């Protein structure tokens, strides 16, 4: 279980990194928690690896005009334990604490997880519920992609080979917004059989805003728009939540594997959607 040979570069700036990517057919290494095991199993065999691990700009946390900018190289541990993140965007902090284990959280990164787009990863549910934006930089340009356009399919995102993710832009939660991430763990890997992230804001006696992100159920994470529409405007009673949660798998092609059939995944998604919403309320 040894990677194939490759060339290695460790740029010190974003510009150096994107220059390297422009010139080489290279794979980007962030924390390596997904890439290195794949390389060891020889399921990935890049000729060139560009290690972003020493670009200080990519580990910043800044707040700017109602948005929280999280550098792509922030580790899960940093995201989970940052007082600023916990205060301004508690959903992403809570979700980060659910990922993998202590060692993986010390090394794995926000941008790396997003770019890998594992269908059972935890972050994507929260990123969907947060309507995150992803900043992608290449040699001569950059762009910001909505999360809805970012996750394309299992292990496939909108990131082009010459691009790197520099930051994720998340909303600073308005007062009165409750959040929760609930997951049924796959017992072996710790990934989500189904994971549901919810953000709910009440106004008066009614739900003014509902955002629900789902991972594990489909080939890629998604926002459960049907659930959100049913919740918004409702009183958020148990019956309202149960009714809305039943829509979580509408139009979704559910995954089936060794650990859960598609039918069971659909069912668990409904249960966990209700649990996440109730916990957020």
């Amino acid at each position, binding site marked *: *279980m*040894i*990677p*194939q*040979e*490759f*060339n*290695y570069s*460790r740029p010190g700036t974003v510009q150096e990194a994107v220059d390297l990517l422009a010139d080489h057919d290279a794979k980007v*290494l962030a924390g*390596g*928690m997904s890439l*290195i*095991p794949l*390389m*060891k*199993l020889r399921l990935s065999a890049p000729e060139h*690896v560009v*290690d972003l*691990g020493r670009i200080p700009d990519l580990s910043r946390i800044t707040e700017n005009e109602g948005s929280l900018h999280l550098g792509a190289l922030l580790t899960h*541990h940093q995201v989970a334990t940052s007082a600023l993140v916990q205060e301004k965007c508690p959903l992403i902090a809570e979700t980060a604490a659910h990922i*993998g*284990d*202590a*060692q*993986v959280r*010390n*090394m794995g990164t926000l941008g790396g997880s997003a770019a890998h787009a594992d269908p059972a990863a935890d972050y994507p549910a929260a990123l969907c519920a947060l309507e995150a934006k992803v900043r992608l930089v290449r040699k001569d340009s950059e762009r910001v992609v909505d999360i809805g356009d970012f996750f394309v399919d299992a292990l496939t995102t909108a990131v082009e080979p010459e691009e790197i993710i520099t930051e994720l832009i998340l909303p600073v939660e308005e007062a009165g917004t409750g959040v929760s991430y609930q997951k049924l763990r796959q017992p*072996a*890997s*710790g990934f989500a059989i189904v994971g549901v992230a919810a953000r709910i804001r009440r106004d008066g006696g009614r739900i003014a805003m509902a955002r629900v992100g789902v991972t594990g159920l489909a080939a890629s994470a998604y926002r459960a728009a049907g659930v959100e529409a049913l919740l918004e405007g409702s009183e958020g009673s148990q019956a309202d939540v149960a009714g809305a949660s039943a829509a979580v798998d509408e139009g979704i092609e559910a995954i089936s594997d060794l650990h859960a059939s598609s039918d069971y995944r659909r069912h668990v998604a409904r249960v966990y959607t209700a649990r996440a919403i109730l916990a957020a309320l």
Partner: protein
Amino acid sequence: MKTQINVCINGQERTDEVESRLLLIHYLREVVGLKGPHIGCETSICGACTVALNGKTVKSCALLAVQADGQDIVTVEGLATDGQLHPVQEAFWNEHGLQCGFCTPGMLMTTRELIERNPDPTDEEIRHGLEGNLCRCTGYQHIVNAVKSAAAKVGG
């Protein structure tokens, strides 16, 4: 492709030329000669290879040696100081927190960080905190006892 790396391992500086694909665990075990960290799997689940990188535990089988360039590494061999066992080692010994010992170096490293971050952990927090380390022998009960005992000693 070879790259020169400078690292500080258990307090000692050293420089080596390494292949870019050399895994940190193989660097530690075969270049440096530290056989404490073990290899129990290749998918970063078992945690037998756990070492501290700049004070944070990582799975050294999922890192390249080149990623550790310029960094500080502590392995199980670096836990005891001046012939004195670290309280975590002492606690695992007293509480029978190991049987075959293969997972133990990783367990000790994770425990050290766990009680640094949470000096008074509950059973549940301990069990959650050890999710990155598999043990097939102990059923974890004596390990949980050992972590508690170590936390009490370090905290008190």
